[in-house]
Every structure is written in structure tokens, then in C-alpha cells.
């Protein structure tokens, strides 16, 4: 520690840490910031209809988009949608590039370590898709262990398959396939390279119709929680506000209205 260069280095890194520390702690309450600026920046990944997608005019549309705009209206702020890759969303939230994430994202203990979640705004089911002329019969989710199964990378479905089937020794490792996007996975099921596609049930119906697949099973057994809005860690006031508004919208039927608008169940 006596070498001047090392001392210099130590001093500089201490300063750097201090600056970073100040940057992260000096933030005021996020809810107050949102209300003061009149703007809430919400991240999504607009490639997942019917929750979030882009219409022919380039506008963000879908269940989540309508929901968050309604929440913004009730908070009296303007909602600005920022689109990015799904895997980038949590990092962007941690870096405070965005104030919240609404992207059909489910609560999970792993994600909860990095960010906080609102209460569930939509309960969901999972679906298992097979080729339209397939003879595969599924009684319960665990039955997929006998087949080649596709899921989307980074999703709860992929995690469930890997934890409860592959790690538990019920399914061979080389039978689990991960795809970056569900439309690619659906094409491979239709082509016969994989047998079953494991996804959320709402996008499943449209995907099945378009890609020549059918739904073999719909189940709630694999669901950990449901869809929640993700917010930066420790923003208690914002969470309270969102929870209050979600409860309010569930009570007055406005969430049901959006659900019906997109033909969801």
C-alpha cells in the first residue's frame, strides 16, 4: 500500500465509488418524481401480442398498453412507452432508465431479487401447443417430459420445465429446446422438429391458428404468480400507488373491459 501509484489508484477508486454511491442514493422518491414531471416512462418489449405489439401505424397497442395508459390517466401523468429487448428490461429498470416495466412479466423469486413487483393485474394460464394433426395427448403438464419441448428463453415456462422436469430427472436435457422468440418456436413445431410448445395461453390461440398448431392442454398448475408491473427495488410509494389503482380498476370493471376488448378469457 506504500507505493504512490497504488495509493493514487486506491484514492481514485474510492472517489469513483463515492460518486456512484451518491448517484444511487441521492434519488428522491420515484412516485414523487413521476408526479412532479408529469411523465411516467414505461418499458416494454413490443413483440408479444395480444399484450404488447405495434399496429400498422407504428403505435404501441395491446392489453398491457391500454392498462398502463389507464393507470397513467388515473395518476394524472402522461405515459411514455419505451420499447426494448425483453432481456434488457430488468437491467434498464435497475439503471433507472425507465420507471416501470409492463411486458406480460410474471413475478418470480429470481426477478424479485433485482426489482420489485406490483400486485398481480392479470391471472393467466399456460398452454401446450402441438401440431394440428398430432396424436399427442397431454393430461397434465408433467406429461410433456416424454416429448421434445420448446419454450421461450428467459420465460417462467422455460424455468418451470428446466427445474421441475429436467433437473428433477424426469426429462432428458436434450429434449428441452429454448427459442429467442415464440414465432420461431411455433414454426419448428409445425415443421416437426419439436413436438410441444410451452407458452402462456393468451398468445397461444392466435399463434396456433396462424401456424397450423392446436392446443393440447391449458393448465394453471405451472403458474407461479401472474402478470405484475415491475418497478425499481425499494420504491414503496410507487408500489402502493400501483396496487391501489390495480385494485380500483379490478373493482370498477375497467380491467375486465380491456380483457374483453382483446378477446382474452
Amino acid at each position, binding site marked *: 500500500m506504500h507505493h504512490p501509484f497504488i495509493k493514487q489508484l486506491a484514492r481514485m477508486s474510492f472517489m469513483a465509488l463515492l460518486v456512484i454511491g451518491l448517484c444511487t442514493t441521492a434519488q428522491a422518491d420515484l412516485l414523487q418524481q413521476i408526479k412532479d414531471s408529469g411523465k411516467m416512462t414505461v418499458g416494454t418489449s413490443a413483440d408479444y401480442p395480444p399484450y404488447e*405489439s*405495434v*399496429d400498422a*401505424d*407504428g403505435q404501441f397497442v395491446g392489453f398491457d398498453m391500454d392498462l398502463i395508459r389507464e393507470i397513467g390517466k388515473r395518476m394524472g401523468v402522461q405515459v411514455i412507452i419505451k420499447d426494448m*429487448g425483453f*432481456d434488457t428490461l430488468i*437491467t434498464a429498470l435497475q439503471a433507472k432508465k425507465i420507471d416501470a416495466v409492463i411486458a406480460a412479466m410474471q413475478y418470480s423469486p429470481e426477478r424479485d431479487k433485482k426489482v420489485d413487483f406490483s400486485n398481480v393485474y392479470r391471472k393467466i394460464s399456460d398452454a401446450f401447443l402441438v401440431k394440428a394433426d398430432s396424436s399427442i395427448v397431454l393430461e397434465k403438464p408433467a406429461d410433456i417430459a416424454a416429448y421434445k419441448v420448446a419454450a421461450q428463453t428467459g420465460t417462467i415456462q422455460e424455468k418451470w420445465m428446466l427445474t421441475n422436469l429436467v433437473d428433477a430427472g424426469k426429462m432428458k436435457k436434450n429434449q428441452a429446446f429454448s427459442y429467442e422468440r415464440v*414465432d420461431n418456436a411455433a414454426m419448428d413445431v409445425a415443421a416437426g422438429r419439436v413436438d410441444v410448445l410451452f407458452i402462456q395461453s393468451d398468445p397461444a390461440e*392466435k399463434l396456433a391458428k396462424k401456424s397450423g398448431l392446436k392446443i393440447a392442454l391449458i393448465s394453471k398448475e405451472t403458474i407461479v404468480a401472474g402478470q405484475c408491473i415491475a418497478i425499481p427495488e425499494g420504491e414503496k410509494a410507487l408500489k402502493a400507488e400501483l396496487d391501489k389503482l390495480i385494485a380500483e380498476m379490478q373493482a370498477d370493471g375497467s380491467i375486465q373491459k380491456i380483457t374483453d376488448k382483446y378477446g382474452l378469457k
Partner: protein
Amino acid sequence: MARGWAIFSNQADRTVIHHDATPRRRSAWPARRDKRAILWWLLMLEAFRFILPGLGITVSVTLIALGLGLALGIVMGMCRAYGGMVLRSIAGVYSILVRSLPVVVIIFILFFVIAEMVDLSPFFSGAIALGVASGAYQCEIFRGAIHAVPNSQMVAARAIGMSRFKAATTIILPQAVRLALPAWANEVTLVLKDSSLVYVIGVPEIMRRAQYVSASTMEPFAAFGAAALMYLLLTLLAGRLLEKIEARMRLDI
């Protein structure tokens, strides 16, 4: 009011086939396969129309990245070829470090780490990250070109009393830039395609808009086909332009 993807929906599907089935059409397009081909091209056209605004963004990101990369590349290339110990090591570390990192990682570093301190929009974070990445490759292009200019020119310039710096910038560099053109034209096409990576931080360029179309319509071939066509057009255009410049600036040493 939000406009849906009319042409991709089942209803439009039926309309087109019905339209094709009129007698006049029947004689011109008798086979079922042809009708499907027409529909597919219509889908592609609609996808092309939607992706078009992304073209401007792709071109802007590419131009900013190329400009920044050119400046960095020439300076760093000169440092690597003629710099002293310090300058040469800085340029060497930059070139090796940046070339060993995937471009996506550089984009992430710039957007999530650097942009914490300086307020940068995703567009500029992405463009600058690509510029920094391209600069490292261009540095190597220019270093090679500088070495391709015979050393006797440097010796001659020094003999008539020019300083090393003046000789390097006014005698060697203008020739090196001309020699670098063919390799540089190749770099242009690479940066053009690397520009698709900025979608991860939310810049809606060609590829991201193609992903929107693919996700909303479940027609990946039409969506990515349209994107491919755009990249092809851009590459051909850039290629022709640079070929012209190359022909005018040709140099035989």
C-alpha cells in the same frame, strides 16, 4: 384510431383470393399457387411499407458510426504506425480491447454505464457505441494502408526538411487513405449490418421494425424478407457509390 394489420388478417386473405377468382383474373392467374404468390408479395409490400421509417434510422446510425469510426480509425491508425511508446500503447490497447468485445457488449456498456453520467438517448448511445467499435477495425485498416506506402517517401520527406508529423499527415496519410478505400468499403457494409444490434436498447431501426411485423402478423418470411431487401438495396447503393469514389481516387504506387 389504431389501424390493424388489414392485409394480414383472414378477412383480407379471403378478399384477395375472391378478387383473383373473377373470370378475367382466372385466365391470367389460373393456378392456386400463383394466387398464394400474389398474396405473399402483397404481405411483403405491406411489411416493406411499415419497415420503411426504420430505414432512415438505420442509415443515420450507420453514418454517425462510420464518421466517428473514421476519425477514431485515422487518429488511432496514425498513432499505431508513427506514435511514440505512449500513443502506440494507447492505440494498441484500444484496438485489441474493442475488437475482442462483441458489439452488443459495447452498446450495453455505453448505454447502461456511461450514459449514467452523461445524458445520452438510446439513439446516440447506440450510434456512438457502433462508432467506437468500428473505429478499432478502421484503425487496423488505416495502419495497414499506412504501412503500404513505401517508407522511402518518409525518408525523402525528412531529407527535404519536413518534420515527422508533417510528413506523416501531408505525405503519407493522403496516399494511405486512398489505399484504404477498398477495405473501408467493406467496413461500411459491416457497420450497416451491425447497426441492427442497437434494437436491444430500443432504437426502432429496420430489424426491430421487422420483428414488430413478424410478431404481430406471424409472417416471419414476409417481414424479414422485406428487411433483407432493404439491407440489400443499401449495400448495393453504398457499394456503387464507393466504387465510383475508388475509381476516381485510384493510386498506383
